[in-house]
């Protein structure tokens, strides 16, 4: 039973296409575990379909259909299908078996470099080519504790495997957590197995423009 979910605003941002890639990936990852949120998203997509249907029509150029029909038989554009299948995987099978299949596509094409943050906590960045956010796997060894850390901004976490707890509760596979600025906590994995999480953090760069306001995801900062 999943007890922690993205809030309604995040799900709506997801359905309208308002999220950057890394937060978007974290929501989709949660959906792999959570029928309830999938149902909510399904309703939000139906709303999108209804708004589309209710829209005022705008006349198309006369030849647009003919042009489009002519393009249907053309070979697919180069980048249309490339991401779909990446046969050679560099993802270690043992780890792969612990992660939702959805995430494999982002991991197959890159070497994960695990870096220790403490004796029991390690992190591996996942590159999705985005500069606004960092997407990463965090791993806490069985019974291990992460260092006490605070959050300068918001951090999104999805528990992928195992469970961890902190002062406020225990989080299991599929749980989605949003940490707000000022939260101080010390997560620790449960005794029986390591805990693997997906997390979204801000990139260590200054952001400018509209995304600055949009972007509350600050860097994970072990102290």
């Amino acid at each position, binding site marked *: 039973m999943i007890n922690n979910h993205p809030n309604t605003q995040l799900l709506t941002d997801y359905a309208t296409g308002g999220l950057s890639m890394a937060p978007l990936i974290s929501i989709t990852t949660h959906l792999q575990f959570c029928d309830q949120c999938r149902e909510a998203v399904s309703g939000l997509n139906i*709303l999108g379909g209804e708004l*589309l249907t209710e829209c005022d029509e705008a006349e198309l150029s006369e030849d647009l259909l003919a042009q489009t029909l002519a393009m249907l038989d053309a070979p697919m554009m180069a980048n249309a299908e490339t991401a779909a299948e990446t046969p050679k995987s560099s993802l270690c099978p043992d780890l792969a078996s612990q992660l939702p299949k959805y995430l494999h596509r982002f991991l197959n094409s890159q070497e994960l470099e695990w870096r220790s943050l403490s004796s029991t906590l390690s992190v591996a960045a996942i590159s999705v080519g985005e500069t606004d956010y960092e997407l990463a796997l965090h791993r806490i060894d069985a019974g291990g504790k992460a260092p006490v850390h605070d959050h300068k901004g918001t951090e999104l976490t999805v528990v992928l495997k195992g469970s961890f707890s902190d002062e406020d509760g225990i989080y299991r596979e599929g749980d989605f957590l949003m940490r707000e600025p000022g939260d101080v906590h010390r997560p620790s994995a449960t005794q029986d197995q390591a805990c693997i999480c997906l997390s979204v953090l801000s990139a260590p760069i200054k952001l400018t423009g509209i995304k600055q306001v949009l972007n509350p995801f600050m860097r994970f900062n072990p102290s």
Partner: protein
Amino acid sequence: MATQIKSKAKMNKPSGPDWNALLVKVGSHQDKAAFGALFSHFGPLLKGFLLKGGGVEPEQAEELVQETMIKVWRKAPSYAPTQAAASTWMYTIARNTRIDWLRKHAKKNHQTDELVAEDLFDENEESSPFTALIQTRNASNIREHLNSLPQEQLQVLTLMYFQGKSGQEVADELAIPLGTVKSRVRLALQKLKLKISPDGEEQVVYAS
């Protein structure tokens, strides 16, 4: 014109063509006449939708319509009318097409071409065990209540959907607090009888 929503594959539509069935035909028989009919119906709606969102010129909107419809052609074999109405399916494809287009045209994040929005969203996001039933109920609830939403709630929703913006971006645009946007969205979804997050309004903030 009313959207065609189906709870059963063989349900008869009181009015208008059965868009779901046409889409199935495109997928199963590469039926160009069916594609043409879908194009003529959804194309102008898609263009209107995109123009309402702003930020695109009419020619760009047509490019996006074209790109969307080509994807519809390509992906139609995987379309399942029991999982989504044609309009819902079109919406998600158009949304993803716009996301990719915006990212391609943004100044930063150049190197992301290898990932497309289609890969980021959940392919099975439509498929919950009760989809067909819920879908029919959701769609008719939406149609019934959409026009009676308070203006301020409708405004926030349409800005988000038409422009593909997050709540925060809409809050910035309207110069109102994010909390106000959030509560308008939530109230609107409740009026439309759509399921909201199991967490309700707040993700619990774990402040110590």
